[in-house]
């Protein structure tokens, strides 16, 4: 606070150009204090969000649909992609960006299906960001009118906060993880356009209450679609394909 006249920095109505060196709050005296406040008023994630919008524009120009796949480690993201590529790859072109802290294991699995794939290793990073996606997209160079699946780092917390510029946010959860997860990880489930409940072929063997899960999900995100499936057994995959066709404008769900 200014000791001379009592004007306060907390009033929040001062705009100061640090280059200009002026007081900028219109009173005629010298402050005895040696500090001054510079209002910056800037979103912390502004840089990421700007890059995400650039990615969105880049994808839109090419009519590419980008799907951000997020989940815990081991929920079946890569298995889901392997099956999707095998069964839907002929129908529309797709490519994959794999995000992991280390190794190219997942990229190797995708490459084995014949699909073009780029691996992003984040090192200590626990999520992909818009800058990583921008670089990966340029390297991948996906064809126009195709689908890019972005397999995010296995983590139900951090990827929730980072817009990559994707067209669709997909959260995968397997029945081995527990029905209470939407309530425990609300930020992640709140951002989902669609939630895939995977490994339903294991329901007879695990203590998982599907209704409790659906109720918990509705409490954090009543607007997301839920598709129940097994990426290994194949149940429910047709609903997923129908949903993907809808998203890329290839007709309604069968």
């Amino acid at each position, binding site marked *: 606070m200014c000791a001379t006249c009592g004007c306060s920095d907390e009033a929040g109505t001062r705009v100061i150009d640090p280059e200009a060196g002026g007081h900028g709050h219109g009173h005629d005296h010298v402050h005895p204090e040696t500090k001054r406040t510079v209002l910056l008023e800037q*979103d*912390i994630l502004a840089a990421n969000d700007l890059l995400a919008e650039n990615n969105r524009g880049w994808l839109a120009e090419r009519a590419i649909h980008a799907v951000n796949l997020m989940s815990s480690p081991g929920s079946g993201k890569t298995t889901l992609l392997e099956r999707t590529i095998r069964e839907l790859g002929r129908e529309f072109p797709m490519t994959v960006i794999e995000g992991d802290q280390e190794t190219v294991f997942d990229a190797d699995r995708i490459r084995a299906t014949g699909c073009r794939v780029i691996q992003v290793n984040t090192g200590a990073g626990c999520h992909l960001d818009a800058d990583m996606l921008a670089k990966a997209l340029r390297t991948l160079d996906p064809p126009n009118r195709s689908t890019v699946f972005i397999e995010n780092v296995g983590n139900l917390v951090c990827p929730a906060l980072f817009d990559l510029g994707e067209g669709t946010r997909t959260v995968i959860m397997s029945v081995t993880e527990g029905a209470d997860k939407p309530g425990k990880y609300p930020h992640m489930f709140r951002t989902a356009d669609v939630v895939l409940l995977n490994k339903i072929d294991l329901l007879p063997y695990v203590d998982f209450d599907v209704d409790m899960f659906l109720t918990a999900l509705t409490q954090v995100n009543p607007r997301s679609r839920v598709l129940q499936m097994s990426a290994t057994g194949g149940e429910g995959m047709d609903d997923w394909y129908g949903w993907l066709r809808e998203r890329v404008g290839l007709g309604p769900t069968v």
Partner: protein
Amino acid sequence: MHELSITQAAVETIIERMGATPIRRVTLEIGVLSGVVVDSVRFCFEVIVAGTPLRDAVLDVVETPGRAACRDCTLEFVVEDPRILLCPGCGDADVRVLAGRELRIKSVEVENVCARPAVARTRPEPG
């Protein structure tokens, strides 16, 4: 820990805006619904500012409360528990968050380089 990249982004933005000016204080606004743990930000801040113009800066965090509006009954309410966003009026979960997701750099405090000797006259800024 996404707080690391978020804090890093904040520090980089401040350096971008303020250059080499030594920063004495940083005020961040972090909403209770932002999904960011303030203690983690504090921890990361200490690590990241080493060797930068922010190295002696004190970190202030203003935690902004959550506000939401029910899409069903249109009631506006303060979000008491950030983990559950339910309308206290009708119990509906279909709510729109109005405030509490903020992740903003509010201001920084710097050494006042514009202090003039007391005998010097200062004029109001033009305009």
